[in-house]
Protein backbone atom coordinates (compact mmCIF):
# COMPACT_ATOMS: atom_id res chain seq x y z
CA UNK A 1 0.00 0.00 0.00
CA UNK A 2 2.79 2.44 0.91
CA UNK A 3 4.67 1.72 -2.30
CA UNK A 4 1.48 2.41 -4.27
CA UNK A 5 1.00 5.60 -2.29
CA UNK A 6 4.39 6.90 -3.29
CA UNK A 7 3.94 5.79 -6.92
CA UNK A 8 0.61 7.58 -7.14
CA UNK A 9 1.84 10.74 -5.41
CA UNK A 10 4.94 10.74 -7.59
CA UNK A 11 2.82 10.44 -10.73
CA UNK A 12 0.53 13.32 -9.77
CA UNK A 13 3.39 15.55 -8.69
CA UNK A 14 5.27 14.79 -11.90
CA UNK A 15 2.19 15.79 -13.92
CA UNK A 16 2.07 19.00 -11.90
CA UNK A 17 5.78 19.65 -12.37
CA UNK A 18 5.30 19.37 -16.13
CA UNK A 19 1.97 21.14 -16.52
CA UNK A 20 2.44 23.79 -13.77
CA UNK A 21 -1.31 24.27 -13.42
CA UNK A 22 -1.19 24.74 -9.65
CA UNK A 23 1.71 27.13 -9.93
CA UNK A 24 0.29 29.21 -12.76
CA UNK A 25 -3.41 29.15 -11.84
CA UNK A 26 -4.19 27.96 -8.32
CA UNK A 27 -1.53 29.98 -6.47
CA UNK A 28 -2.35 33.23 -8.32
CA UNK A 29 -6.02 32.58 -7.59
CA UNK A 30 -5.23 32.41 -3.87
CA UNK A 31 -3.35 35.69 -4.01
CA UNK A 32 -6.18 37.34 -5.96
CA UNK A 33 -8.57 36.17 -3.24
CA UNK A 34 -6.35 37.75 -0.56
CA UNK A 35 -6.24 41.03 -2.47
CA UNK A 36 -10.01 41.01 -2.97
CA UNK A 37 -10.56 40.47 0.76
CA UNK A 38 -8.33 43.48 1.38
CA UNK A 39 -10.44 45.58 -1.03
CA UNK A 40 -13.61 44.43 0.70
CA UNK A 41 -12.30 45.43 4.14
CA UNK A 42 -11.02 48.84 3.03
CA UNK A 43 -7.61 50.43 3.46
CA UNK A 44 -7.69 50.42 7.27
CA UNK A 45 -5.16 47.96 8.71
CA UNK A 46 -6.85 46.86 11.92
CA UNK A 47 -9.79 44.85 10.49
CA UNK A 48 -7.36 43.17 8.12
CA UNK A 49 -5.01 42.10 10.90
CA UNK A 50 -7.97 40.95 12.95
CA UNK A 51 -9.46 38.97 10.09
CA UNK A 52 -6.17 37.67 8.71
CA UNK A 53 -6.48 34.12 10.16
CA UNK A 54 -9.99 33.63 8.81
CA UNK A 55 -9.22 35.20 5.45
CA UNK A 56 -6.15 33.01 5.07
CA UNK A 57 -8.19 29.86 5.64
CA UNK A 58 -11.09 30.95 3.43
CA UNK A 59 -8.61 31.61 0.63
CA UNK A 60 -7.09 28.19 1.32
CA UNK A 61 -10.48 26.47 1.17
CA UNK A 62 -11.37 28.06 -2.16
CA UNK A 63 -7.94 27.30 -3.61
CA UNK A 64 -8.12 23.72 -2.39
CA UNK A 65 -11.36 23.22 -4.35
CA UNK A 66 -9.42 24.18 -7.48
CA UNK A 67 -6.53 21.90 -6.58
CA UNK A 68 -8.94 19.00 -6.02
CA UNK A 69 -10.71 19.63 -9.30
CA UNK A 70 -7.37 19.58 -11.04
CA UNK A 71 -6.42 16.36 -9.27
CA UNK A 72 -9.70 14.76 -10.40
CA UNK A 73 -9.53 16.03 -13.97
CA UNK A 74 -6.05 14.54 -14.38
CA UNK A 75 -7.73 11.12 -14.21
CA UNK A 76 -10.75 11.96 -16.30
CA UNK A 77 -9.17 12.07 -19.76
CA UNK A 78 -7.80 9.30 -21.96
CA UNK A 79 -9.49 6.65 -19.83
CA UNK A 80 -6.94 7.24 -17.09
CA UNK A 81 -9.30 6.08 -14.38
CA UNK A 82 -9.98 2.77 -16.08
CA UNK A 83 -6.25 2.39 -16.55
CA UNK A 84 -5.69 2.94 -12.86
CA UNK A 85 -8.31 0.37 -11.95
CA UNK A 86 -6.65 -2.12 -14.29
CA UNK A 87 -3.21 -1.35 -12.95
CA UNK A 88 -3.79 -3.38 -9.80
CA UNK A 89 -2.64 -0.58 -7.52
CA UNK A 90 -4.19 -0.82 -4.08
CA UNK A 91 -7.17 1.60 -3.94
CA UNK A 92 -6.15 2.69 -0.46
CA UNK A 93 -2.70 3.45 -1.83
CA UNK A 94 -4.24 5.41 -4.69
CA UNK A 95 -6.28 7.43 -2.24
CA UNK A 96 -3.33 8.15 0.03
CA UNK A 97 -1.15 8.97 -2.96
CA UNK A 98 -3.59 11.47 -4.39
CA UNK A 99 -4.11 12.94 -0.93
CA UNK A 100 -0.37 13.27 -0.45
CA UNK A 101 0.10 14.97 -3.80
CA UNK A 102 -2.74 17.43 -3.18
CA UNK A 103 -1.43 18.07 0.35
CA UNK A 104 2.07 18.77 -0.97
CA UNK A 105 0.68 21.34 -3.42
CA UNK A 106 -1.49 22.91 -0.73
CA UNK A 107 1.44 23.22 1.68
CA UNK A 108 3.35 25.10 -1.01
CA UNK A 109 0.30 27.29 -1.49
CA UNK A 110 0.07 27.91 2.25
CA UNK A 111 3.61 29.21 2.30
CA UNK A 112 2.73 31.64 -0.49
CA UNK A 113 -0.52 32.77 1.15
CA UNK A 114 1.13 32.94 4.58
CA UNK A 115 3.74 35.32 3.24
CA UNK A 116 0.93 37.20 1.49
CA UNK A 117 -0.98 37.61 4.74
CA UNK A 118 2.10 38.91 6.52
CA UNK A 119 3.07 41.29 3.73
CA UNK A 120 -0.34 42.49 2.55
CA UNK A 121 -2.28 42.54 5.82
CA UNK A 122 0.60 43.37 8.12
CA UNK A 123 -0.09 40.45 10.44
CA UNK A 124 2.86 39.51 12.62
CA UNK A 125 3.31 35.87 13.58
CA UNK A 126 4.30 35.28 17.21
CA UNK A 127 4.23 31.48 17.57
CA UNK A 128 5.59 29.88 14.42
CA UNK A 129 5.19 26.24 15.39
CA UNK A 130 1.45 26.74 16.05
CA UNK A 131 1.11 28.04 12.49
CA UNK A 132 3.10 25.12 11.14
CA UNK A 133 1.07 22.51 13.03
CA UNK A 134 -2.28 24.02 12.08
CA UNK A 135 -1.26 24.27 8.42
CA UNK A 136 0.03 20.72 8.28
CA UNK A 137 -2.99 19.15 9.98
CA UNK A 138 -5.46 21.40 8.18
CA UNK A 139 -3.88 20.55 4.84
CA UNK A 140 -4.08 16.82 5.43
CA UNK A 141 -7.75 17.19 6.31
CA UNK A 142 -8.50 19.36 3.26
CA UNK A 143 -6.65 17.00 0.95
CA UNK A 144 -8.21 13.82 2.36
CA UNK A 145 -11.80 15.09 2.41
CA UNK A 146 -11.26 16.74 -0.98
CA UNK A 147 -9.87 13.62 -2.62
CA UNK A 148 -12.77 11.61 -1.25
CA UNK A 149 -15.44 14.00 -2.54
CA UNK A 150 -13.47 14.51 -5.73
CA UNK A 151 -13.68 10.76 -6.38
CA UNK A 152 -17.38 10.81 -5.57
CA UNK A 153 -18.07 13.59 -8.07
CA UNK A 154 -15.66 12.28 -10.71
CA UNK A 155 -17.43 11.43 -13.91
CA UNK A 156 -20.33 13.75 -13.17
CA UNK A 157 -20.88 16.24 -15.90
CA UNK A 158 -21.71 18.99 -13.46
CA UNK A 159 -18.87 18.38 -11.00
CA UNK A 160 -17.61 21.96 -11.31
CA UNK A 161 -20.71 23.23 -9.54
CA UNK A 162 -21.45 20.25 -7.34
CA UNK A 163 -18.00 19.65 -5.81
CA UNK A 164 -17.70 23.02 -4.00
CA UNK A 165 -21.23 22.64 -2.66
CA UNK A 166 -20.50 19.16 -1.33
CA UNK A 167 -16.98 19.80 -0.11
CA UNK A 168 -17.00 23.25 1.51
CA UNK A 169 -19.49 22.47 4.32
CA UNK A 170 -17.59 19.29 5.09
CA UNK A 171 -14.29 21.09 5.56
CA UNK A 172 -15.85 23.81 7.72
CA UNK A 173 -14.22 22.31 10.86
CA UNK A 174 -10.80 22.85 9.25
CA UNK A 175 -11.64 26.52 8.70
CA UNK A 176 -12.86 26.83 12.26
CA UNK A 177 -9.95 25.09 13.95
CA UNK A 178 -7.31 26.55 11.64
CA UNK A 179 -8.61 30.05 12.23
CA UNK A 180 -8.60 29.65 16.01
CA UNK A 181 -5.06 28.27 15.99
CA UNK A 182 -3.87 31.12 13.80
CA UNK A 183 -5.52 33.63 16.10
CA UNK A 184 -3.62 32.11 19.00
CA UNK A 185 -0.41 32.16 16.99
CA UNK A 186 -0.79 35.80 15.92
CA UNK A 187 -1.56 37.01 19.43
CA UNK A 188 1.42 35.15 20.86
CA UNK A 189 -0.84 32.60 22.52
CA UNK A 190 0.40 29.71 24.57
CA UNK A 191 0.03 26.10 23.37
CA UNK A 192 -3.00 25.79 25.65
CA UNK A 193 -4.98 28.22 23.46
CA UNK A 194 -4.73 25.88 20.53
CA UNK A 195 -5.19 22.51 22.20
CA UNK A 196 -8.93 21.80 21.73
CA UNK A 197 -8.69 22.88 18.10
CA UNK A 198 -5.61 20.78 17.67
CA UNK A 199 -7.66 17.76 18.81
CA UNK A 200 -10.47 18.66 16.43
CA UNK A 201 -8.04 18.78 13.49
CA UNK A 202 -6.49 15.45 14.41
CA UNK A 203 -9.93 13.85 14.73
CA UNK A 204 -11.02 15.32 11.39
CA UNK A 205 -7.88 14.05 9.64
CA UNK A 206 -8.21 10.60 11.19
CA UNK A 207 -11.88 10.27 10.20
CA UNK A 208 -11.40 11.28 6.59
CA UNK A 209 -8.17 9.37 6.08
CA UNK A 210 -9.79 6.23 7.49
CA UNK A 211 -12.97 6.74 5.43
CA UNK A 212 -10.91 7.24 2.31
CA UNK A 213 -8.77 4.16 2.85
CA UNK A 214 -11.89 2.03 3.31
CA UNK A 215 -14.25 3.38 0.67
CA UNK A 216 -12.02 4.75 -2.11
CA UNK A 217 -12.03 1.44 -3.95
CA UNK A 218 -15.82 0.98 -3.96
CA UNK A 219 -16.32 4.64 -4.92
CA UNK A 220 -14.22 4.14 -8.02
CA UNK A 221 -16.82 1.67 -9.26
CA UNK A 222 -19.61 4.23 -9.19
CA UNK A 223 -18.32 6.46 -11.95
Amino acid at each position, binding site marked *: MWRDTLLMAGKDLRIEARSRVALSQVAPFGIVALVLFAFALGPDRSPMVKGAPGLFWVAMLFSSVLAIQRSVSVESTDGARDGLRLSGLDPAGQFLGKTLSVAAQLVALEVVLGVGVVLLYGASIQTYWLIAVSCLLGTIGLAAAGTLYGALSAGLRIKETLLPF*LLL*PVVAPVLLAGTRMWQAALSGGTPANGTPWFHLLIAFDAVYLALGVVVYGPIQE*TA
Partner: protein
Amino acid sequence: MTSKTIVQSPRMIWTTRIIGILALVGTGITVWLGLWATPPDQTQGDLVRLVYIHPGVAWVALYLAFGLAAGCSLLYLWPRTRSLFWDRLAAASVEVGVVFNACTLISGSIWGKPTWGVWWAWDARLTSTAVLLVLFLGYLALRRVPAEPEVRARRSAFAALFAVVDVPIVHFSVVWWKTLHQGATVLNANLSPTIHGSMAWTLLLGFVALTLAFVWMLLVRYRIGAMEDYLGSGELDMALLERQSEGMAPVPATGEAPEALAPVGSAPGARAPAEVTR
Protein backbone atom coordinates in the same frame (compact mmCIF):
# COMPACT_ATOMS: atom_id res chain seq x y z
CA MET B 1 -40.34 -8.00 0.72
CA THR B 2 -39.80 -6.32 -2.61
CA SER B 3 -40.47 -2.70 -3.29
CA LYS B 4 -43.36 -3.54 -5.61
CA THR B 5 -45.38 -5.28 -2.96
CA ILE B 6 -44.94 -2.39 -0.59
CA VAL B 7 -46.27 0.06 -3.12
CA GLN B 8 -49.15 -2.09 -4.25
CA SER B 9 -50.42 -3.88 -1.20
CA PRO B 10 -53.68 -2.44 0.13
CA ARG B 11 -52.56 -3.30 3.63
CA MET B 12 -49.62 -0.97 3.25
CA ILE B 13 -51.86 1.80 1.96
CA TRP B 14 -54.16 1.40 4.95
CA THR B 15 -51.24 1.28 7.37
CA THR B 16 -49.98 4.53 5.89
CA ARG B 17 -53.39 6.13 6.29
CA ILE B 18 -53.79 5.00 9.88
CA ILE B 19 -50.32 6.25 10.80
CA GLY B 20 -51.16 9.56 9.14
CA ILE B 21 -54.37 9.89 11.15
CA LEU B 22 -52.60 8.94 14.39
CA ALA B 23 -49.88 11.50 13.68
CA LEU B 24 -52.51 14.18 13.09
CA VAL B 25 -54.39 13.31 16.29
CA GLY B 26 -51.17 13.09 18.28
CA THR B 27 -49.97 16.44 17.02
CA GLY B 28 -53.37 17.95 17.78
CA ILE B 29 -53.31 16.72 21.38
CA THR B 30 -49.70 17.89 21.77
CA VAL B 31 -50.71 21.35 20.58
CA TRP B 32 -53.63 21.44 23.00
CA LEU B 33 -51.53 20.19 25.93
CA GLY B 34 -48.59 22.36 25.04
CA LEU B 35 -50.47 25.60 24.52
CA TRP B 36 -53.33 25.35 27.06
CA ALA B 37 -53.16 22.42 29.47
CA THR B 38 -49.61 22.68 30.82
CA PRO B 39 -48.50 25.44 33.20
CA PRO B 40 -45.97 28.10 32.20
CA ASP B 41 -42.39 27.56 33.32
CA GLN B 42 -41.03 29.19 36.48
CA THR B 43 -38.17 30.99 34.75
CA GLN B 44 -39.07 30.92 31.07
CA GLY B 45 -42.80 31.56 31.33
CA ASP B 46 -44.74 30.77 28.17
CA LEU B 47 -41.54 30.39 26.14
CA VAL B 48 -41.15 26.90 27.54
CA ARG B 49 -44.03 25.76 25.35
CA LEU B 50 -41.66 25.54 22.40
CA VAL B 51 -39.84 22.76 24.21
CA TYR B 52 -42.70 20.40 23.37
CA ILE B 53 -41.92 20.76 19.67
CA HIS B 54 -38.27 21.70 19.19
CA PRO B 55 -36.49 18.66 20.71
CA GLY B 56 -38.97 16.32 19.06
CA VAL B 57 -38.36 17.84 15.64
CA ALA B 58 -34.61 17.69 16.21
CA TRP B 59 -34.84 14.08 17.35
CA VAL B 60 -36.70 13.10 14.19
CA ALA B 61 -34.32 14.96 11.89
CA LEU B 62 -30.94 14.16 13.36
CA TYR B 63 -31.30 10.73 14.85
CA LEU B 64 -34.27 9.08 13.21
CA ALA B 65 -34.15 10.40 9.66
CA PHE B 66 -30.42 10.73 9.15
CA GLY B 67 -29.70 7.62 11.20
CA LEU B 68 -32.16 5.64 9.11
CA ALA B 69 -30.65 7.07 5.93
CA ALA B 70 -27.17 6.02 7.05
CA GLY B 71 -28.41 2.55 8.00
CA CYS B 72 -30.19 2.10 4.66
CA SER B 73 -27.09 3.32 2.82
CA LEU B 74 -24.96 0.75 4.62
CA LEU B 75 -27.47 -1.97 3.80
CA TYR B 76 -27.41 -0.90 0.17
CA LEU B 77 -23.61 -1.01 0.04
CA TRP B 78 -23.49 -4.41 1.72
CA PRO B 79 -23.52 -6.80 -1.27
CA ARG B 80 -25.86 -9.31 0.37
CA THR B 81 -28.62 -6.83 1.10
CA ARG B 82 -28.17 -4.68 -2.00
CA SER B 83 -31.54 -3.59 -3.28
CA LEU B 84 -32.92 -0.35 -4.65
CA PHE B 85 -35.46 -0.62 -1.85
CA TRP B 86 -32.80 0.61 0.62
CA ASP B 87 -31.72 3.35 -1.73
CA ARG B 88 -35.25 4.68 -2.10
CA LEU B 89 -35.86 4.46 1.63
CA ALA B 90 -32.63 6.36 2.32
CA ALA B 91 -33.59 9.04 -0.19
CA ALA B 92 -37.07 9.41 1.28
CA SER B 93 -35.61 9.54 4.77
CA VAL B 94 -33.12 12.26 3.88
CA GLU B 95 -35.76 14.32 2.13
CA VAL B 96 -38.10 14.25 5.12
CA GLY B 97 -35.12 14.69 7.44
CA VAL B 98 -34.04 17.85 5.65
CA VAL B 99 -37.51 19.34 6.22
CA PHE B 100 -37.36 18.45 9.90
CA ASN B 101 -33.80 19.75 10.14
CA ALA B 102 -34.92 23.09 8.71
CA CYS B 103 -37.83 23.10 11.17
CA THR B 104 -35.35 22.46 14.00
CA LEU B 105 -33.37 25.54 13.03
CA ILE B 106 -36.50 27.65 12.56
CA SER B 107 -38.13 26.62 15.85
CA GLY B 108 -34.81 27.11 17.64
CA SER B 109 -34.49 30.59 16.18
CA ILE B 110 -38.00 31.52 17.27
CA TRP B 111 -37.09 30.48 20.80
CA GLY B 112 -33.65 32.10 20.62
CA LYS B 113 -34.89 35.58 19.76
CA PRO B 114 -36.79 36.25 23.02
CA THR B 115 -34.48 34.14 25.21
CA TRP B 116 -30.98 34.92 23.96
CA GLY B 117 -31.95 38.18 22.25
CA VAL B 118 -30.76 37.06 18.82
CA TRP B 119 -32.24 34.95 16.02
CA TRP B 120 -28.97 33.21 15.43
CA ALA B 121 -25.90 32.68 17.59
CA TRP B 122 -22.63 31.26 16.26
CA ASP B 123 -22.81 28.50 18.76
CA ALA B 124 -21.29 25.07 18.16
CA ARG B 125 -24.59 23.20 18.21
CA LEU B 126 -26.42 25.68 16.00
CA THR B 127 -23.55 25.86 13.55
CA SER B 128 -23.07 22.13 13.32
CA THR B 129 -26.82 21.65 12.82
CA ALA B 130 -26.78 24.19 10.01
CA VAL B 131 -23.80 22.42 8.45
CA LEU B 132 -25.74 19.17 8.68
CA LEU B 133 -28.62 20.73 6.73
CA VAL B 134 -26.23 21.87 4.00
CA LEU B 135 -24.56 18.45 3.87
CA PHE B 136 -27.85 16.68 3.27
CA LEU B 137 -28.96 19.33 0.78
CA GLY B 138 -25.76 18.33 -1.01
CA TYR B 139 -26.91 14.71 -0.85
CA LEU B 140 -30.21 15.67 -2.49
CA ALA B 141 -28.35 17.70 -5.14
CA LEU B 142 -26.16 14.68 -5.87
CA ARG B 143 -29.27 12.54 -6.30
CA ARG B 144 -30.64 14.89 -8.91
CA VAL B 145 -27.63 14.30 -11.16
CA PRO B 146 -28.87 12.05 -13.95
CA ALA B 147 -27.31 8.58 -13.75
CA GLU B 148 -28.16 4.91 -13.90
CA PRO B 149 -30.20 3.93 -10.81
CA GLU B 150 -27.45 1.64 -9.49
CA VAL B 151 -24.72 4.22 -9.98
CA ARG B 152 -26.83 6.90 -8.37
CA ALA B 153 -27.72 4.64 -5.45
CA ARG B 154 -24.09 3.78 -4.79
CA ARG B 155 -22.90 7.33 -5.05
CA SER B 156 -25.70 8.63 -2.82
CA ALA B 157 -25.07 5.93 -0.25
CA PHE B 158 -21.47 7.10 0.13
CA ALA B 159 -22.54 10.72 0.35
CA ALA B 160 -25.03 9.87 3.11
CA LEU B 161 -22.35 8.04 5.08
CA PHE B 162 -19.92 10.97 4.76
CA ALA B 163 -22.58 13.44 5.85
CA VAL B 164 -23.82 11.47 8.84
CA VAL B 165 -20.38 11.87 10.46
CA ASP B 166 -21.65 15.29 11.54
CA VAL B 167 -24.51 13.87 13.63
CA PRO B 168 -22.39 12.79 16.64
CA ILE B 169 -20.62 16.17 16.44
CA VAL B 170 -23.99 17.90 16.80
CA HIS B 171 -24.99 15.60 19.64
CA PHE B 172 -21.82 16.07 21.67
CA SER B 173 -21.27 19.71 20.74
CA VAL B 174 -23.00 20.83 23.93
CA VAL B 175 -20.56 18.71 25.93
CA TRP B 176 -17.34 19.33 23.98
CA TRP B 177 -17.74 23.08 23.71
CA LYS B 178 -19.45 25.00 26.46
CA THR B 179 -22.23 26.35 24.34
CA LEU B 180 -25.10 28.75 24.65
CA HIS B 181 -27.45 25.91 23.80
CA GLN B 182 -28.48 23.92 26.85
CA GLY B 183 -27.43 20.33 27.39
CA ALA B 184 -29.58 17.25 26.94
CA THR B 185 -32.74 17.22 29.05
CA VAL B 186 -33.83 13.63 28.62
CA LEU B 187 -30.97 11.67 27.05
CA ASN B 188 -28.30 13.05 29.36
CA ALA B 189 -25.29 11.21 30.72
CA ASN B 190 -26.96 9.68 33.79
CA LEU B 191 -30.30 9.16 32.05
CA SER B 192 -32.30 11.10 34.65
CA PRO B 193 -34.65 13.51 32.91
CA THR B 194 -34.70 17.04 34.32
CA ILE B 195 -38.33 17.57 33.37
CA HIS B 196 -41.35 16.26 35.29
CA GLY B 197 -45.12 15.97 35.58
CA SER B 198 -47.50 17.11 32.86
CA MET B 199 -44.63 18.83 31.05
CA ALA B 200 -42.74 15.55 30.72
CA TRP B 201 -45.83 13.79 29.40
CA THR B 202 -46.49 16.49 26.85
CA LEU B 203 -42.87 16.36 25.75
CA LEU B 204 -43.11 12.59 25.39
CA LEU B 205 -46.34 12.81 23.42
CA GLY B 206 -44.70 15.41 21.17
CA PHE B 207 -41.89 12.97 20.45
CA VAL B 208 -44.36 10.19 19.62
CA ALA B 209 -46.54 12.42 17.43
CA LEU B 210 -43.60 13.81 15.48
CA THR B 211 -42.13 10.33 15.05
CA LEU B 212 -45.47 9.15 13.64
CA ALA B 213 -45.55 12.17 11.34
CA PHE B 214 -42.06 11.26 10.16
CA VAL B 215 -43.04 7.64 9.49
CA TRP B 216 -46.11 8.76 7.57
CA MET B 217 -44.13 11.20 5.41
CA LEU B 218 -41.47 8.57 4.87
CA LEU B 219 -43.98 6.01 3.63
CA VAL B 220 -45.70 8.49 1.34
CA ARG B 221 -42.38 9.74 -0.03
CA TYR B 222 -41.21 6.18 -0.55
CA ARG B 223 -44.34 5.37 -2.55
CA ILE B 224 -43.83 8.44 -4.71
CA GLY B 225 -40.19 7.48 -5.24
CA ALA B 226 -41.09 3.94 -6.20
CA MET B 227 -43.77 5.17 -8.62
CA GLU B 228 -41.30 7.58 -10.19
CA ASP B 229 -38.99 4.65 -10.78
CA TYR B 230 -41.77 2.67 -12.46
CA LEU B 231 -42.45 5.69 -14.59
CA GLY B 232 -38.81 5.82 -15.57
CA SER B 233 -38.60 2.12 -16.28
CA GLY B 234 -41.53 2.21 -18.69
CA GLU B 235 -44.05 0.77 -16.29
CA LEU B 236 -46.27 3.78 -16.59
CA ASP B 237 -49.40 1.73 -16.92
CA MET B 238 -48.77 0.00 -13.64
CA ALA B 239 -48.10 3.28 -11.87
CA LEU B 240 -51.35 4.69 -13.28
CA LEU B 241 -53.36 1.66 -12.20
CA GLU B 242 -51.77 1.89 -8.80
CA ARG B 243 -52.70 5.55 -8.48
CA GLN B 244 -56.24 5.00 -9.63
CA SER B 245 -56.83 2.09 -7.29
CA GLU B 246 -56.26 4.38 -4.33
CA GLY B 247 -59.76 5.74 -4.86
CA MET B 248 -58.49 9.30 -5.17
CA ALA B 249 -59.01 9.40 -8.92
CA PRO B 250 -61.81 7.05 -9.98
CA VAL B 251 -61.25 5.18 -13.22
CA PRO B 252 -63.29 7.06 -15.85
CA ALA B 253 -66.14 4.89 -17.08
CA THR B 254 -66.26 4.75 -20.85
CA GLY B 255 -69.74 6.23 -21.15
CA GLU B 256 -70.46 9.15 -18.86
CA ALA B 257 -67.42 10.25 -16.88
CA PRO B 258 -65.44 11.68 -19.82
CA GLU B 259 -68.32 14.00 -20.68
CA ALA B 260 -68.23 15.36 -17.18
CA LEU B 261 -64.53 16.01 -17.56
CA ALA B 262 -64.89 17.68 -20.95
CA PRO B 263 -64.16 21.41 -20.93
CA VAL B 264 -67.18 23.68 -20.69
CA GLY B 265 -68.21 25.11 -24.03
CA SER B 266 -66.87 22.30 -26.16
CA ALA B 267 -69.38 20.27 -28.10
CA PRO B 268 -70.49 17.48 -25.72
CA GLY B 269 -69.99 14.01 -27.04
CA ALA B 270 -68.12 15.16 -30.13
CA ARG B 271 -64.33 15.20 -29.92
CA ALA B 272 -63.59 15.98 -26.31
CA PRO B 273 -64.51 12.66 -24.70
CA ALA B 274 -62.37 10.76 -27.13
CA GLU B 275 -59.39 12.93 -26.27
CA VAL B 276 -59.91 12.53 -22.57
CA THR B 277 -60.17 8.77 -22.67
CA ARG B 278 -57.12 8.56 -24.82
